């Protein structure tokens, strides 16, 4: 599935859901627990977390790759660490803007 900003995806290994904030150019595969994530409203068979792809995804956290090519926001927490083409995503350290509202 082509990743694009605004796309909502879910994990097939658990309850995790994310929304894509910034999408990488060209085809890339986002996985959770080692299994490709699917569209939020898609029917997809459940799968098990692959060894080495464990990890919790935390609500409201942003996840990025080292190159900064992708950013996703966790909208529903769950199991199954996130990775882009096999490279694990890390929590982006949040530096909030001063509150203007």
């Amino acid at each position: 599935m082509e990743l694009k900003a605004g796309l909502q995806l879910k994990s097939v290994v658990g309850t995790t859901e994310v929304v894509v904030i910034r999408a990488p150019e060209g085809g890339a595969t986002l996985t959770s627990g080692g299994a490709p994530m699917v569209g939020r409203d898609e029917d997809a068979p459940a799968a098990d977390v692959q060894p080495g792809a464990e990890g919790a995804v935390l609500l409201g956290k942003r996840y990025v790759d080292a190159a900064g090519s992708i950013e996703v926001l966790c909208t529903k927490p769950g199991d199954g660490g996130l990775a882009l083409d096999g490279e694990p995503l890390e929590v982006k350290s949040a530096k909030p803007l001063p509150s203007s509202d």
Partner: protein
Amino acid sequence: MYLGLILDMAHSGLGDRDAVTIDGRSLDHTQLAEYSWAASARFLELGVPSVVYLGTNHVAFPVALFGAAGAGIPFVPLNYRLGPDQLAAQLEAHPGAYMVYEGEPPATAVPGRSADRQAFVDSLDPVGAEAPPPPDPDAICLLLYTSGTTAAPKAAVLRHRHLMSYLLGTVEFASADEDEVSLVSVPPYHVAGVANLLSNLYAGRRIVYIDRFDPEVWLGIVRDQKVTQAMVVPTMLAQIVDHLRDAGDADTPSLRTLSYGGARMPAPVLTRALELFPTTGFVNAYGLTETSSTIALLGPEEHRAAFGSDDPAARARLGSVGRLVPGIEIEVRDDDGVPLGVGQTGLVFLRGDQISGEYAGVALLEEDGWFPTRDRGRIDEDGYVFIEGRADDTIIRGGENIAPAEIEDVLVSHDRVVDAVVVGLPDDQWGQRLAAVVVTSGDADTSAEELRELVRTRLRSSKTPETIEFWPELPRTDTGKLLRRTVVARLSEP
């Protein structure tokens, strides 16, 4: 991305943390989400095309807003202070709408499809309510009437994707500490009122509403409820500063951040406020209704650095709206559309995902996404943006473009002048001539000639108002915007 997503997130992530308080009653995030979902079910069942909200701040405001958003129909907060004719015209533009009102029902309210705001909330059954299916991200989320200071108000269109882009671009989910409280005194029909609600909810900061602004009530709530952030428009800050005129300190130790926006802030008011709130961080937010609120901001450190500096250039930054928020691009162009360089004043164009630039039926965005704000401004070498007013306010005198703000700033720098406006009046010789109206403090004795001399010395004679009148106050909207066309009309009366 649809707005209801942040409600789902708050429901599962913030749960029993208080979301909104008004008149001592609070709803936590679970309750707010469930009431809103029940409201969505109500609107979907009735099949109404939109939801009109006519009243001051109340828990019914977020419930009706998220209720409409969940149902995929526009939420339309109207200005309850409009005259009957203007209000009737705006109501007519939304036939069949569900109406949530305060007090007396509007003449066009239909029983079964309208309710007093408290009765509306009480009529909902939140128990077991579930999130509605997500609407199209391109659906219209909000119709907000612009303040109409230079022309008749028009409804700006904000879609789900615009508001979500603003929120996800500028706010971190649940980033507020549990003790953080935001005091909101801007009305629901103002884009800042909507942005305040959404940002604070998403950050997990409890919102306390004042339904009608009063400086004494505002200060009382800040102290009693240990408010940590607040947003005001410049006229509110002017009233707060005036209320504290004999005080050395506002005595509000809990207040970490005070943000302001919505109109130009007079320099004397800001300077005095920085003295009265010495431990508070000030944030100037600049944005338009059509840009989903804030697109640039001047932060606390930048305020204090400018305030503490003796260097006039550094100090001038107090008059800046700061730097762009992530995801926004800016371009300043001359009247022929040619991009200008650093420090040159021209028309401000903006681009970014949060910018709608669309009015009921009419899109103003250029093909490549640039939105003409009709504001005049410039950018300095460090990326700080200075806004000098609306292009429509520019006075053309003998072929020279004159921004009234520059002259108004000089007038209010006078000790006894508390407010000032400069407008252009038709003139046979010059095309337009400059006329000023000033408001002086209390018993002050200032002559028009003294003020004209001040402008002549600081600027030049072509920028010196030919006439200066003294009025008890200037006509402004409830959110502090100067009604220049009313001033012109009054000055033109024979």
